[in-house]
């Protein structure tokens, strides 16, 4: 049984509705950077999902999965390449970098679990961060945040039976822990926060443009 806990940022209040047309005709480049938490294939899959998220909100999205971050020196080259592929400069560049902050898989838990016929669950957990940076076309950082969460896996008949009883007797619908609830809740939180961060960055970009036009 997996449970998900938002640690920091992922549970922040968000106003943007990801199902609405929030980014009509916005040109967005999305970079997904693999790390110790996401393999390149997983980063690529994340990029595809994020691309779909913003396309559904009206943006024109270009995705890229690279093994390295966007440093100041190579940003122009990266953006130039993306510009050529997308037929124009991106309005915003979204960079998502995944990191594992902590992982535990304690053998003592497994010993306790096995010696009690798995009534005591064996617990493994992983704390991760999705570092999000949104830049404008010139590479200026408009918004950055670190979205952190935790995935806890409780293995054993005790965890399964206890959870089933709690789901059936005590928990209300939003509090029920099911096989799919961890993944669904994590995706909901991540997509809501990404939409909000990019929206905030887009407003910042427009204010900067107005500011420049008045100088």
């Amino acid at each position: 049984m997996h449970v998900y806990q938002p640690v920091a940022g992922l549970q922040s209040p968000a106003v943007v509705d990801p199902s609405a047309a929030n980014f009509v005709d916005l040109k967005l480049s999305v970079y997904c950077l693999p790390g110790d938490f996401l393999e390149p294939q997983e980063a690529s899959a994340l990029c595809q999902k994020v691309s779909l998220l913003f396309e559904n909100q009206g943006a024109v999205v270009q995705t890229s999965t690279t093994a390295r971050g966007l440093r100041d020196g190579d940003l122009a080259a990266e953006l130039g390449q993306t510009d050529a592929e997308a037929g124009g400069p991106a309005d915003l560049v979204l960079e998502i970098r995944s990191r594992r902050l902590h992982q535990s898989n304690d053998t003592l838990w497994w010993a306790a679990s096995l010696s009690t016929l798995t009534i005591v669950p064996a617990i493994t957990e992983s704390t991760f961060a999705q570092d999000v940076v949104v830049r404008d076309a010139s590479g200026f950082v408009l918004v950055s945040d670190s979205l952190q969460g935790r995935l806890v896996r409780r293995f054993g008949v005790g965890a399964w039976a206890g959870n089933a009883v709690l789901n059936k007797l005590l928990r209300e619908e939003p509090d029920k822990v099911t096989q799919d609830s961890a993944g669904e809740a994590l995706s909901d939180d991540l997509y809501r926060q990404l939409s909000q961060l990019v929206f905030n960055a887009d407003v910042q970009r427009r204010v900067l443009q107005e500011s420049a036009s008045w100088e």
Partner: protein
Amino acid sequence: MGVIIFLSLVLLASTTSKDPSPGWSRSVRDSRNMDCERMDGETASARHPGLIEAPGPRGDNIERSALVCRERVMAEGLRPARDEAVLMDLDDTVSGFALAAGSLRSDLTERTWLVEVHYPSAPVSSKIAFAAKNALNSQGLRVSDRAMTLSAGDVSVLTRLPPGEAWPAACRRYAAGGLGEGDALLAVVTRDPRETQLHAGICDRGQWTWLL
């Protein structure tokens, strides 16, 4: 068998009660109502002495890590999401505005600062104004409680302009009205009902500058 089950339940209860993730002793909503930080054992022990045991001076061959959580003052859903987002970061936001305002130009430190807030909720507006004045004060700037007013005709024209043009135009009207040469105005505004951040601009001698 009974003994195993009893010992298992005791062990389970003692180990899961402190875990902040949703589970036997904590609901999903309770778990979402906390902000947590993952830190190493030494840092956690230094910040929370007595609660978290410090690692031995020579180490103890165990990788210690602590997840330190703090319950939010207002539970999720009690306030509108936008108000909650703005108020959660208000201190940092207005401190940034005040720092930027004071360091934009050296002559601005000699001005008397007025604060104006444009936010749809009146109670939140007053909180933002209070925090902004405190932040300006803590930068060593002179702050006044005086409020700027515009004529009905000015308001009628300005509210029809897009925000990018309205603020510079309002600034010129303020300069022609009660905003003197020794005054500067810090305006804290929200630009879109879907954003969760605030913007700030300065009106000084009829010149409008966005601080972001």
